[in-house]
């Protein structure tokens, strides 16, 4: 009994330390959504523009139109290819076990800061595993 309490105490102490470490690290990670705008304030759309794309390349003729997934995947190829790029995230958003063809714009808003759609249910998700 005494020994098990001692072990439990050590375990608890280890957990406290590891938890403290995590709670310190977490907020910084959470506040920065994946692909958040850079320090220059450029959003996804600005980066595409800087790379030489025109509005119509993504929007088509109707500038007001939402970007359909095929427009993104026309260049970014496939969810599989994207998943390979984000394989080190704790939850790989491009390889969802729940949804097929989740709209890209669920996270990649374009003209505003990106949002982390997975966090709606999974809580704060760090970028690294």
């Amino acid at each position, binding site marked *: *009994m005494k020994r*098990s*309490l001692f072990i*439990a105490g050590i*375990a*608890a102490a*280890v*957990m*406290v330390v*590891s*938890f*403290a470490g995590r*709670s310190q690290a977490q907020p910084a990670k959470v506040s920065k959504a994946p692909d958040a705008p850079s320090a220059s304030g450029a959003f996804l759309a600005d980066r595409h523009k800087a790379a030489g794309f025109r509005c119509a390349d993504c929007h088509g003729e*109707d500038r*007001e*139109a*939402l970007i359909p997934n095929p427009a993104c995947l026309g260049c970014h190829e496939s969810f599989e290819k994207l998943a390979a790029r984000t394989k080190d995230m704790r939850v790989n958003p491009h*390889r*969802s*076990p*729940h*949804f*097929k*063809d*989740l*709209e890209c*714009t*669920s996270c990649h808003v374009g003209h505003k800061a990106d949002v982390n*759609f997975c966090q*709606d*249910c*999974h*809580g704060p998700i760090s970028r690294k595993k």
Partner: protein
Amino acid sequence: MKRYRLEAWIVAFAALAVLAGGVQAADRRYTADVVVVGGGSTGLAAAVTAAEGGANVVLLEKNPYLGGASNFAEGLFAVESELQRAKAYGLTKEEAFKHIMEFGHYKTDAPLLRLFVEGSAANIEWLRERGVEMEAIHISPTEPMVWHVIKNRGQYIHGGALVTALQDKLTEKGGVILLRTPAKRLVRSGSRVSGVEAVDRRGNRVVVNAQAVIIATGGFGNSKEKISQWTKFDPEKFKPTLPLNKTGDGIVMAKDAGADTEGENLMLHLGTEGKAIVPLGNIYGMTWEPNLWVNRSGERFVDEGIVFSFPMAANAVGRQRGAYAWSIFDDGEVEHVMTKGVKQGIGVIIPVMTKLTKLKEEIGNAAAADSDAFKAADSIEELAKKIGVPSEALRKTYDDYNRYAACGRDLQFFKAARWMRPLTKGKLYAVKLYPYHFTSIGGIRVNRDMAVIDKDDRPIEGLYAGGCDIGGLYSDTYTLWASGHAYGFAVYSGRMAGESALKKIGKR
């Protein structure tokens, strides 16, 4: 004069062009045979049935993904299925139907339930023919083997495997899927429903004219306002499990068209939340185990074995003052679930026998964070203080419970001896139990063809509904005995609504 007239014409023409352009930008129009409102398992089953029968189908979905709650639910009710026959399981349709009626105290729609029970096995075969594989299992030790759990399909798990299989089928059959396009109102032509008006994310109107409209919006579980208006529950205390944006849109639209409704309610279950509590983690898993439960008076209130029927367990906790309780266990129980595994778990997310290997780590984290939903103590008095219940009362409850456990006889509530053990090893822990709901249940009244009916049982022409938008299936509590009832009925009613729509357009 001539010049003036020409100018007038130019102005008029320009105005017309602007107007036309404006209308074009604000209005997208579709003409279909069938329009389905909501892309969960009900809507997808309806859309696939209609599309396979040769109908042009448009499916409107509010979320940026298909499936809704059906992505996360896990299994479908069926009786006399081939999967049960393969396991030499003998429950009959007759027994199941009678039990379901008894469970609902005959306050439910017997003809509709009878048809569902009759068609439940064919429902499973229909899904299997479309690439959804399942296995018949018991949801818990107290319920029959009627739960047909969906097997993973490639990268897709749980209900996601079913949803994506039907999504593929609908795409293959040429169905048009419009995501993030919530329906706002039904289009009427006299007494007939002739289409749906929706709105896209830019606020543009999307009008779908169709001969048949199928409502499948999955209930109202994410609307506090609707829960307050339509049920007896306090939405601040009975919260939805997941944020799925289900706000009763279909029920409201049907009501506006003259539909009758009944039985609005919630499918309750237990859970917890709080500081340093991992959602569906190991501490959360302990909320579905038959530990010692006490209310805020520090007293037991039920045979905790009721945990094996999740809606009843949440009923029992939900009626305690404050609508919460504490589940108490000791280091002996921690050891047990870490090495031998859980007695119940939570569905197939935490299957029975799962070893909660992270429990000690989570307990450490929760204790370190002084979690509001989890407390640890060295004595029952200390625990009483930490969970805010009268110390003397909890001491008595604890001593009585330990005595009952030691002699194998719960003199208070007749809890089965196999779920009881004296809580005398190491530290004591308490996790706070709250009621949640997986989905709302109850709503629109339909006839046996899934046609929406008014207060005189007259069908509203062109309007059908299914799934969790429907009333008449349950009484005061979700029928967990018929495990997977809601999911089974979603697919069944979707298919039947699809068949009815095909009849309506002359393709059946």
